[in-house]
């Protein structure tokens, strides 16, 4: 998968959030999907993934190949819209804050896990207890954030409780998978890891380690059986081979195509994704401490050409922030700096140093076409008078530059640092605290006005007020030209002509939302 995809792919709930309200609608819908199933009961599709999943315990991993499979087996309480990422009901029908640390969630009744075990408040309490238990050592500590536990109110009502006031509990719940308490307790973690059970639309068929995994439709799925009866995940690490397999019809969906390969796919699927490649400018010392120099760097870069030529049209020029409309806190009013090399030169002259020498740390291979983008930026800056000392580091060394990890806050920051950030929480807070706060793990900013706003947004629980403060913070960072926001990448897939699917912002691969002609 293109660089970061494997690592950053996230969990977020089921695509077509079917919130069946009235009884009549429910009956109609069930009948409709039952007849669809009868017609295409034998429909089988194949999906190429890059590597063998780490395991299939839906609470253990943050590995994209594992998520691709178990997202179809297990479900969270809340899901998100494929394109807008807005929250939608799934195993929960509604939720509201009782106080700033407590979210009261009403559960869908009558749902069962595929082994017959009922899904209820006890299952929610158990799932959260298991996930947050430090002994369980999940890779998903990101997902639950500040959530500590859940308390049963009655069979279909739970209170989800966080350690501190937290406005993003619902977003976290869209990442946390529900697991069957009895089954997990009786069978044990290692058995569950290879024989997962959930409330989802598919159940595990077989798993040939290192080769393939098959899923079968869950005939008892509470949302009606899905239209595709069988799914085979085939492990194909080479993007070229995935492309060839698409051409021969061996697979219906290729998940690892590069932007260069995409035009060759029989059908191309694209959607705006979370990744925002950007350059962190060091305000704390060096030439970029001067705002005019930061502005010059921003005017020097032609984002449209980078999107078209480096990303082959699979990216859009970024707004003046590392978020899209899918993230709460996104500021729709921020226009990015236009390409204007003459103005960049003027600004450099005004700064008193028309040829500043700057260090630029990048890496290669972690994100889609990253090295080419880094070199393009270097070229644009040199064209207006910068002297850029560019260095592409091995990823481990790059990480030490990006995240001194609090061990050494005084470590000198490079003048320019390449990175790509993708919001996976649905709220701007996490990235604001990482890149824009005084002690942010990857922060090079030095702006007391910004710091105040970032501290304030974290402490504001009221959704409307919080969003407003986050928007102010992003506006301030844009006006101060703290970063060079480059583009917003799209999530891209190659598909067979028979497959119809709306790909998702969160990169979930939900077969339930797919249709395939047989």
């Amino acid at each position, binding site marked *: 998968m293109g660089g970061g995809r494997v690592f950053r792919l996230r969990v977020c709930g089921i695509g077509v959030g079917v919130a069946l309200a009235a009884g009549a609608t429910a009956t109609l819908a069930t009948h409709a999907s039952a007849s669809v199933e009868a017609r295409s009961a034998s429909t089988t599709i194949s999906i190429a993934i890059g590597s*063998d999943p*780490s395991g299939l315990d839906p609470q253990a991993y943050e590995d994209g190949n594992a998520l691709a499979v178990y997202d179809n087996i297990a479900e969270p309480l809340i899901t998100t819209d494929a394109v807008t990422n807005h929250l939608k009901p799934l195993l929960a029908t509604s939720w509201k804050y009782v106080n700033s640390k407590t979210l009261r969630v009403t559960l869908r009744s009558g749902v069962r896990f595929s082994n017959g075990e009922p899904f209820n408040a006890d299952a929610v309490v158990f799932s959260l207890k298991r996930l947050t238990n430090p002994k369980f050592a999940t890779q998903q500590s990101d997902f639950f954030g500040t959530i500590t536990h859940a308390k049963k109110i009655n069979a279909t009502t739970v209170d989800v409780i966080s350690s501190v006031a937290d406005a993003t509990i619902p977003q976290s719940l869209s990442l946390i998978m529900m697991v069957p308490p009895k089954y997990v307790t009786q069978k044990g973690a290692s058995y569950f890891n290879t024989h997962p059970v959930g409330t989802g639309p598919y159940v595990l068929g077989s798993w*040939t380690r*290192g080769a393939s995994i098959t899923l079968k439709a869950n005939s008892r799925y509470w949302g009606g059986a899905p239209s595709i009866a069988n799914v085979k995940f085939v*492990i194909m690490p080479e993007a070229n081979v995935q492309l060839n397999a698409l051409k*021969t019809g061996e697979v219906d969906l290729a998940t690892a195509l590069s932007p260069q390969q995409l035009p060759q796919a029989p059908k191309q699927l694209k959607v705006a994704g979370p990744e925002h490649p950007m350059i962190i400018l060091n305000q704390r010392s060096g030439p970029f401490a001067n705002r005019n120099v930061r502005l010059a760097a921003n005017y020097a870069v032609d984002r449209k050409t980078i999107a078209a030529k480096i990303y082959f049209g699979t990216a859009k020029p970024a707004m003046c922030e590392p978020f899209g409309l899918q993230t709460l806190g996104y500021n729709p009013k921020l226009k990015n700096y236009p390409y204007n090399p003459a103005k960049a030169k003027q600004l450099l002259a005004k700064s008193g140093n028309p040829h500043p020498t700057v260090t630029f740390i990048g890496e290669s291979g972690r994100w889609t076409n990253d090295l080419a983008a880094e070199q393009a930026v270097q070229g644009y800056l040199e064209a207006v008078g910068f002297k850029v000392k560019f260095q592409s580091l091995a990823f481990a060394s790059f990480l030490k530059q990006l995240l001194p*990890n*609090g061990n050494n806050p005084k470590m000198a920051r490079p003048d320019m640092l390449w990175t790509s950030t993708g919001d996976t929480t649905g709220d701007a807070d*996490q990235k604001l605290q990482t890149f824009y706060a005084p002690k942010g793990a990857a922060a090079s900013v030095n702006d007391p006005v910004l710091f105040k706003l970032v501290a304030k947004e974290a402490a504001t629980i009221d959704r409307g007020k919080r969003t407003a403060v986050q928007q102010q913070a992003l506006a301030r960072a844009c006006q101060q030209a703290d970063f060079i926001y480059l583009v917003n990448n799209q999530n891209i897939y190659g598909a067979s002509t028979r497959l119809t699917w709306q790909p998702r912002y969160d990169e979930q691969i939900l077969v339930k939302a797919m249709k395939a002609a047989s």
Partner: protein
Amino acid sequence: MVSRFLARRIALGVGVIATATLIAWLLVYALGSPANLMLPISATPAQVARFSHQMGFDKPMPERLGHFIERAVHGDFGTSYWQSEPAVRVVVSRLPAELLLIGGAMLVAYVLSLVLGVIAARRAGGALDRLIVAVSIVGVSMPAFWLAELLIVAFAVHFRWFPVGGYGSFKAAILPILATAALPLGRLTQIVRSAVLDEQTNRVHITSLRARGVSERRILFVHAVRNASAAIVTMGGWEMGRLLAGFTVTIEVVFGWPGLGHLAIDAIQQRDLPLIVADVFFVSTVLVALNIVVDLFRVLLDRRIVL
């Protein structure tokens, strides 16, 4: 004699395996704490510290090494971070695919190289000989992943005779085996050709066989090949060792073949240190065993060799 030889070779082999495994361990752990690489970028320092502690990365190096040796001696290489199973079990689960690929490729290489090599030797200097030599050179020099891609484009995408990738059916095994066989086939063909040619032209016993009126075909296929067989087996064993020692990595990745080479790449990409070390241990063990077996075979095939 044979038992003394075996005892010495096995003792040496154990030394080799232990050294290779130890070097692999030292190299991967010299990277420092892998916690940063294994956790998501957004992990907090507290999360990194907790994770390091759970995994034992925060202990001093000598203590970790002692612990590793103690467990490794009992066949325990730790739990794979990536697959959450004992690393040894993960590696063993990939052995059938590895053996099928290498065994199949060596079978193809042995059989075809004997036929092609003998034909070439018989027609030495002729057009057929030149063609066979040219093809064998192509087989030796073409990068395996490139040949694999060419085979896919031709026989999977264009003719659609075989699947592009996958594992589990006879058909799916053909292209990976052919791609793997190309290198040993090319080299063995050359070995067979020159060994047979050498026997045929320079040896007194062949001349005497001819004088006795034994047919040229019988001389070639029975006497010359038999005497050349020690060299062929040795080279074959060496080729097989090369395949095991990493040649199949790119082929396995291209075809999505679940063998040891593919596993090694996955283990490295996942920063799965126990799995990397276990993989090195297994590959070096199989290599050492293979060398011993080849030496024994040579004795059986050529009575002139004394251990």
